[in-house]
């Protein structure tokens, strides 16, 4: 195993460019699970990012909020301004593990770990996040809802680092985050949902319902053109067109579809005037 210790961003980008298979390490919370027995992982090369101070603080401009590539969940939980303007970021962050994970885990790490059950990614996507990737060749921006191309596959080259996550500042007339797990704390989502409404329209994002976290265009269309629904099951055709859940150790496809329908219906019946 080789560890390359970067002290500045350009140095980290140089190290990633110089070794096409090196793995960037931010908080380490995904990488080190059962680490001593994962001996195959000990043969790889890692680039440590933990000293890259420039990537830590969130920044504001008139038009947007920018999370750094190393901004942690706890950084966001303790930020009152983020809590006021982007409350779903705080709500989701508080559902990630507990303080010990929140203190180390980063939003960018949640994006590139690419778990279909991630807690951070749904709310980022519901706020129209843009992933800012940097490499020695330059900067590239990819909207998060177009970032994933398949299970654990994404539009990030091995030499690119997520240096920031950008969000437009907008008034939201509706926003909700739901996580359904086996218990309230320290659980991995069986179903995750983030829904927002702004002048840009509705955003409905589902987690643990497909090989990637994804937006649900059929449900979004159904919300844009007010459609009177009478029961949760009325959402099932749109759910079937938007997502493809599987049976796995945490739940079943059938349970996930029904829970998604019921949770969405319960949340949206008020704002949408359903009975």
């Amino acid at each position, binding site marked *: 195993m080789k560890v390359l210790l970067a002290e500045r961003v350009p140095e980290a980008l140089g190290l990633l460019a110089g070794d096409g298979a090196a793995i960037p390490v931010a908080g380490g*919370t995904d990488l080190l699970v059962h680490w001593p027995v994962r001996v195959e992982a000990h043969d790889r090369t890692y680039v440590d990012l933990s000293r890259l101070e420039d990537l830590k603080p969130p920044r504001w401009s008139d038009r947007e909020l920018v999370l750094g590539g190393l901004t942690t969940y706890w950084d966001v939980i303790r930020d009152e301004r983020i809590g006021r303007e982007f409350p779903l970021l705080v709500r989701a962050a508080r559902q990630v593990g507990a303080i010990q994970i929140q203190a180390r885990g980063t939003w960018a790490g949640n994006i590139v770990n690419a778990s279909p059950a991630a807690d951070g990614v749904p709310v980022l996507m519901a706020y129209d996040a843009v992933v800012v990737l940097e490499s020695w060749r330059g900067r590239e921006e990819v909207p998060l809802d177009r970032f994933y191309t398949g299970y654990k596959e994404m539009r990030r080259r091995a030499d690119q680092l997520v240096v920031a996550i950008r969000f437009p500042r907008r008034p939201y007339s509706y926003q909700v985050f739901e996580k359904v797990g086996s218990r309230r*704390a320290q659980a991995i989502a069986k179903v995750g949902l983030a829904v927002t409404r702004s002048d840009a329209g509705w955003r409905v994002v589902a987690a643990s319902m497909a090989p990637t976290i994804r937006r649900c265009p059929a449900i979004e269309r159904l919300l844009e053109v007010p459609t009177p629904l009478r029961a949760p099951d009325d959402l099932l055709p749109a759910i079937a067109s938007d997502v493809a859940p599987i049976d796995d150790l945490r739940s079943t496809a059938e349970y996930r579809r029904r829970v998604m329908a019921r949770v969405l219906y319960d949340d949206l019946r008020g704002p949408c005037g359903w009975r």
Partner: protein
Amino acid sequence: MSLTVAFTLNGGPVSVAVEEPERLLDTLRYRLGLTGTKEGCGEGECGACTVYLDGLPVNSCLVPTYQVRGARVETIEALDPDQLGPFLEQGATQCGACTPGVVMTALWISAHSELLETHTVRELMAGNLCRCTGYDGIVDAVATTIGEVGEGGTGKRESTAG
């Protein structure tokens, strides 16, 4: 042995040679002899290995030792034994496997009682699993250290921590 990591441990400087893959938990226990920090699950779930890293509770099983270079680390050995009083009085300890981690998180909450404006003790303690005490004693011990009436065993009981 190919990496030397210098950091501040329990208030004093240390410099230790480690293997690259080493976890902070193992460096503390097996190179520095601080065996108060326990390994439970090894996957960041149980909190038995909780230490403070730059003032925040973290799972030392998930921290590569190379990441603490230049940082401030505090372990259960640094705490004043007198601070354990409320844990003994409230029956917040039993078999003891989780206790070092529980005490680390609990005393961090006590030192940052402003967190209780936004969080409950139970939410902040959710990263420390205890299979013996049922949590009420732990929650009451935290409440005692910050001089408040408990949200655990005395008076109203929340149905579950989970």
